[in-house]
């Protein structure tokens, strides 16, 4: 586990377009806090101010001048402000361990990248998803994201239990976390909609929002969709219950 602490975590997102220049984005995260390490000179546009379309549930005090999520996104949004969501692109994601490549739409590639910027920004609401960045899965499907979110949350409950707290094995708070995240996604999309001329940036957030919207209902349905994958565990439980039954 030492490798988790040793050095900063780096990811490179590369967008290759059929007819246009390649665009690279290097992301460096603090190894321990997973906070985004930003370059010194970065844009601070008007739309990044905290009070500009501030999220309804924003817990930050008025003394903060800028929205941390918006500041993290400023350069990226500027790069794709004139791009269409369904533009075709080949996205390459390089991490220390492996390289991912996918022919996809710009909105899809961009949503994965925006997702990283949002949860590593120190926004108190988005921070709850930060552990997932360490195990980032580019181009994840809704189902994969649901599985990763539930796994992350249950791991957190394990640590809470070990520290003497009351774990939430029913995932009740996870649904609440995602409802709050949906509100943030709506606020962020309003900001970047005004900072863009075309729909690529906004639709990338819309994809993140869609996954967030579906998660409370997936939980409400008892994760029925993925339960069959755990048939072996359930069978084992039924066998034990059979032995114990008089």
């Amino acid at each position: 586990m030492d490798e988790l602490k040793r050095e900063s975590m780096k990811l490179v997102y590369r967008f290759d377009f059929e007819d246009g220049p390649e665009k690279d984005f290097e992301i460096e995260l603090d190894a321990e806090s997973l906070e985004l390490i930003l370059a010194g000179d970065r844009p601070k546009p008007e739309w990044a101010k905290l009070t500009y379309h501030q999220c309804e549930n924003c817990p930050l005090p008025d003394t903060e001048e800028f929205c941390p999520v918006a500041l993290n996104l400023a350069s990226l949004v500027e790069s794709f402000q004139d791009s269409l969501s369904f533009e075709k692109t080949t996205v390459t994601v390089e991490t220390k361990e492996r390289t991912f490549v996918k022919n996809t739409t710009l909105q899809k590639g961009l949503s994965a990248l925006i997702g990283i910027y949002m949860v590593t920004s120190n926004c108190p609401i988005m921070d709850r998803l930060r552990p997932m960045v360490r195990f980032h899965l580019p181009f994840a499907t809704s189902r994969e994201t649901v599985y990763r979110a539930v796994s992350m949350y249950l791991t957190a409950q394990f640590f809470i239990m070990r520290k003497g707290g009351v774990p939430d094995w029913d995932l009740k708070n996870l649904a609440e976390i995602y409802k709050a995240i949906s509100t943030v996604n709506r606020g962020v999309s309003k900001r970047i909609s005004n900072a863009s001329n075309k729909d690529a940036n906004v639709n990338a957030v819309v994809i993140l929002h869609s996954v967030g919207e579906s998660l409370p209902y997936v939980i409400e349905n008892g994760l029925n969709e993925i339960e069959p994958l755990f048939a072996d565990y359930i069978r084992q439980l039924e066998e034990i219950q059979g032995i114990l039954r008089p």
Partner: protein
Amino acid sequence: MVGRVLIVDDEDTLRLTIKTRLASGGFETDAAVDGEEALEKLKQSRFDVVLLDINMPRMDGITALGIISDLHPHTDVIMLTGFADFTTAIECLKKGAKDYLVKPIDTTELITRLRSLLRARNSEAALDELKGGQAAFLLDKVYASVRLAGQLLRELKGAKLSKDQGQILASVSSSLEDLADDATKGVDPAILTKKRGAGELKNLPLSRILSPAIDSVKRTAKAMGVNVEYHADKQSAKIECDPQRLGGAFHSVASGMLLAAGKGASLRIGESSTKEDVAVEFHLDKSTEKAKKAADQLSKAEEISGKGFASFEDSAIVWVSARSSIRNHKGTMEVQSTKGSLTIKCRVPFHRKEH
């Protein structure tokens, strides 16, 4: 099932999320990746509402909206877009969209809007059904009968009548004129161009639907000196219809022909069937000039009925009503007027279910 919704968006995550949420809200859903696929799906199946993204490859949402509004007027469209752009919103509403939602969509709000849209649709359809039934009654039953009665009274004008009898005849004729005027004033012509349900459906042989109309027309025709011949199909096919309304439509077609019949005319009514539909043909061998005018008016009825029925010939008024009822049974009605003769051919499919 609350309603059928087609989700059109090029992004699979969004399609899946909306599909999952709408299904949990009791909606039946299908999805398409762009405007072209949406139009294909609409050809194959009927949807109550289409949720239509604007920016999509191949065919964008605004182009698709124009085509849907033209080809599927009974399907409502809600536009979805990543931009809160009011110019685009107004353009969409002008092109026939019922609503406009900015992404990211709150799916709970979406369900609320869909439910209220469907409630409004159902109320509107129920009101149209009521108005349509009233229009059919006023035109098929009241107007056609009153006009024929008026025609019969006119025949009496040449007869030798006492002064009192003449006054009674004039008074009754005048009352019938007023009644006919009131009957047409009670009908909004626009309702006759709307597609509606066909009322209470029954599966009956065509001859049973036709016979009350034939009996009634035969009685009137005899008094008018018009000969009526009816050729029934021995194996009269069964059709799914509202017998009152379809029977009323056939009565109106025949009544309109009697109103357009010349002296000594014969009216032939023939019944036949193919593998898909039944046909009833009405042929009048001697028709008046008014018949030709009425046939012309019928062909342009949708353009001129906005002004009411004031300029319409009696026959045209009852045929407009008949054609509306036949169309609501998914059928067709064609009128041909040539050299003093008149033919009306009505075709109605065996089943009126949507495909």
